[in-house]
C-alpha cells in the first residue's frame, strides 16, 4: 500500500432529514481501520450533526449522535468545526457534543478532538488534503 494519505471527510448536511450524515459516519468508522491521516470537517448545516441533546425516539429513527463520541477510540481526533457556520446558526462550542480522545503519548490524557476554526483556515485544510470525501 502507498504512503499515508490525508483523508478529509466534508460534512455539510444536517442529520435525520437525509441519510447523508449517518452514512458518512459509517464511512469514517470503516475508513479508520486503514490507518490514513484522517480529518473531519463540519461546516454549513453539517455542524448540526454534532449538536447535543438529540433524541429521535418520537420520530422512530436511530439516534446516531452518540457514535461521534466513539471516534476518539478509532484514532479519529482531528475534527474541524467552522466558526462562521456556528455563528450563522446561533450556536457555540457549548452546543456541541464533547468529543475527546486519549493521547497515549501523554499518559492517556483526555484531549478535545474538536477545533473550531475560521472559514479561511477550513479552506486551507481542504486544499491540503489528498483525498476529499464529499457528503
Amino acid at each position, binding site marked *: 500500500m502507498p504512503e499515508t494519505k490525508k483523508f478529509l471527510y466534508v460534512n455539510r448536511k444536517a442529520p435525520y432529514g437525509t441519510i447523508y450524515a449517518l452514512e458518512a459516519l459509517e464511512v469514517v468508522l470503516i475508513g479508520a481501520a486503514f490507518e490514513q491521516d484522517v480529518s473531519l470537517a463540519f*461546516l454549513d448545516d453539517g455542524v448540526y450533526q454534532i449538536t447535543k441533546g438529540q433524541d429521535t425516539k418520537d420520530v422512530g429513527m436511530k439516534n446516531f449522535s452518540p457514535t461521534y463520541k466513539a471516534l476518539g477510540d478509532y484514532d479519529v481526533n482531528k475534527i474541524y468545526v467552522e466558526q462562521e457556520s456556528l455563528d450563522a446558526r446561533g450556536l457555540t462550542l457549548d452546543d456541541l457534543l464533547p468529543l475527546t480522545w486519549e493521547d497515549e503519548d501523554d499518559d492517556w490524557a483526555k484531549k478535545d478532538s474538536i477545533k473550531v476554526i475560521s*472559514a479561511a483556515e477550513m479552506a486551507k485544510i481542504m486544499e491540503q488534503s489528498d483525498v476529499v470525501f464529499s457528503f
Partner: protein
Amino acid sequence: MSQLHTVNKSPLERNALESAITHAVKGNALLMIEDGVYGAMQGTHKSAMVSEAMSDISFYVMGPDLKARGIDETRIIEGIKIVDYSGFVALVAEHDTTQSWL
C-alpha cells in the same frame, strides 16, 4: 496543491456556490455543473458574487448542461469558460483534488 470545486446547485436555491467560493483559495478552479450552471448567468442576484470572485478563482461551466437548460452562451458572465465532459476530465486531472459541494 490545487483544488477543483464542483457546484451542482442553483445559487438561488442553496448556498453551495457561495460556500464553495468562500472556501476556494487563490488559484483554485470552480466548475458549475447540472443545476449549478444557473450560477454562471448574468443578471441574477448572485452574478456579482461570481464576478467578484473571478480575480482569485478560475470559473468554468458545463456546456452540455447549459444547452439542456436553454441557456444561451451570450448570457454567461464574461470570463467563465465553457467546457465539455472531456474538459471536465482535464480539470479533474489538472488539480490535485476535487471537492463536490453537494
